């Protein structure tokens, strides 16, 4: 619709343009035109018709032209293809191709060779320069130093260690379990006496009372006042009432206060820790765990392995001593020796805490990988399997002797339990 309207408009414009142009000449030509129109209506009308039909006609003409061109194009393409084929089959092209291939074969290695020679030339030239000489010395120096290093003691040692590890014996990395060089009792302090001596301070005579805070005083006075007494009476009634509803609400409030209080009141472990810190200001949980992992546990394990009853007795109280020493005694009874090889200690954790009469108790749990066998005098394995590693879960309760000042000697095993299971890999 649009193009047609545009055409109509443009054609009318053209006609009007023609009219405008010819208006000047109208006085002169109008007569001729009218005469022409009169005499040659066909011409005039055909012109006007050609202007209207011109679009369609030109369209048809275009299509015809395109079609003709198309056929021409097809013919030319066919001709071109024929000629191209002829060229392909021609001998000249074949020879040219062959020649190209030969050149290719020769050219590339030649080119590479040229590049190589060029590079080596430049390298030589570089080597001859000052800088190159210095660089050469540097690399020589490096290799020399490397040789020296290779001959050095430490490297030899490191190599030997590596070969030993590869063969399955030798020094293990730091994080693995290490056998303690010397077993010790609790009071054997390899670093010497660290005893702090306490003397009574007889000079200070002024003792100042610790002043309670203002809030505390106010709270105390309130509790002792009449209102406070009334409230405490009511609370007593609430606690001891038998009414169903009150019992129900008491149950709910108790539950909530235990949960909420647990969050803010601190755990059992926290209370025990606070107490331990009072006696030993430098105490910390991490330090204690490190102490267990590096000192107490390896000590005990090696003591059991070497069947050193004295040391075990020193570190344990009665009950755990009997439990630990039981397999050793049994092996001795049948004339064999109980062997325990500890491979690794890991996952040392403080599992809980409690308080007994002797002092605060920390419960630690850990896992070991051990090989437990019973050998007779000739060395033959009587019970157990040499190559079977057992994963043993231990739980020890360590009590801190409050009178002992030295933290390294203060802990004693008052309970222990273990469970072993074979490991596959």
């Amino acid at each position, binding site marked *: *619709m649009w193009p047609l309207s545009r055409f109509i408009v443009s054609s009318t414009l053209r006609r009007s343009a023609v009219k405008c142009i010819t208006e000047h000449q109208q006085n002169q030509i109008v007569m001729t035109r009218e005469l022409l129109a009169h005499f040659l209506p066909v011409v005039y009308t055909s012109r006007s018709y050609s202007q209207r039909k011109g679009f369609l006609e030109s369209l048809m003409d275009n299509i015809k032209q395109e079609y003709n061109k198309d056929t021409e194009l097809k013919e030319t393409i066919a001709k071109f293809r024929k000629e191209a084929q002829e060229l392909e089959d021609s001998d000249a092209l074949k020879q040219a191709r062959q020649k190209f291939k030969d050149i290719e074969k020769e050219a590339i290695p030649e080119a590479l060779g040229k590049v190589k020679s060029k590079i080596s030339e430049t390298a030589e030239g570089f080597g001859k320069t000052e800088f190159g000489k210095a660089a050469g010395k540097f690399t020589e120096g490096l290799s020399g130093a490397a040789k020296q290093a290779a001959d050095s003691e430490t490297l030899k040692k490191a190599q030997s260690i590596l070969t030993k590890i590869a063969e399955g014996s030798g020094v293990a990395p730091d994080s693995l379990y290490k056998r303690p060089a010397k077993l010790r009792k609790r009071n054997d302090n390899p670093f010497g006496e660290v005893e702090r001596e306490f003397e009574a301070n007889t000079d200070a005579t002024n003792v100042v009372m610790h002043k309670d805070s203002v809030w505390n005083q106010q709270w105390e006075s309130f509790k002792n006042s009449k209102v406070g007494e009334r409230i405490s009476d009511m609370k007593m009634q609430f606690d001891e009432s038998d009414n169903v509803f009150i019992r129900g609400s008491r149950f709910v409030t108790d539950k909530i206060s235990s949960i909420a209080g647990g969050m803010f009141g*601190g*755990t059992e472990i926290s209370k025990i820790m606070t107490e331990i810190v009072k006696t030993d200001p430098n105490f910390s949980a*991490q330090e204690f765990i490190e102490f267990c992992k590096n000192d107490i546990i390896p000590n005990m394990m090696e003591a059991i392995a070497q069947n050193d009853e004295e040391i075990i007795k020193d570190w344990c109280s009665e009950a755990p001593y009997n439990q630990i020493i039981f397999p050793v005694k049994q092996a001795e009874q049948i004339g064999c020796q109980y062997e325990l090889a500890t491979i690794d200690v890991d996952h040392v954790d403080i599992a809980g805490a409690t308080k007994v009469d002797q002092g605060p108790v920390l419960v630690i749990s850990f896992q070991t990988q051990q090989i437990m066998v019973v050998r007779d005098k000739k060395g033959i394995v009587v019970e157990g399997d040499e190559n079977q590693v057992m994963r043993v879960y231990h739980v020890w309760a360590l009590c801190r002797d409050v009178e002992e000042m030295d933290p390294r000697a203060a802990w004693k095993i008052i309970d222990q339990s273990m469970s072993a299971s074979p490991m*596959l890999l």
Partner: protein
Amino acid sequence: MDYTRDPCPWRILDDCGGAYSLGFVGGGLFSMVAGARNAPKGITNRLMGGMANARIKAPRTAGSFGVWGLTFSLCDCSLVALRQKEDPWNSIMSGAGTGFILAIRQGMWPAVGSAAIGGILLAMIEGVGIALNRFQADMYKQQPPQLEDSNDAVQGGLQPAAY
């Protein structure tokens, strides 16, 4: 096909790293809270206790999670390559395989039990995922398509000619 994830070989590292960071952040937070609670009284003690505990525990938890993610992704990609399909069964079997592999050191029976637990866990996760997908699809399906009257803007007027 899930186009948001990398293709299979690179997906393994992706999952391993993601699991490691998840374990690190989660384990760090939990161990910090636990350390603070188990520390002696006093705000300094609790802070130090929390930090010390987190310092020890967080890398361990992160490593465990990372190893779990790595084995899970390995099994998953292997199953996809074997079966030439991507469906929830891959995840379930991978979960079982991961449980088995990670517990094998403790013996055959614990490994089988761990595999069962892993499989059930993954089955639950996949089930929830499928249920969510179905629910979302239903949500979109509930509006019936309304037929619009063909609005002829040019009714009897000039028709647009296709030139």
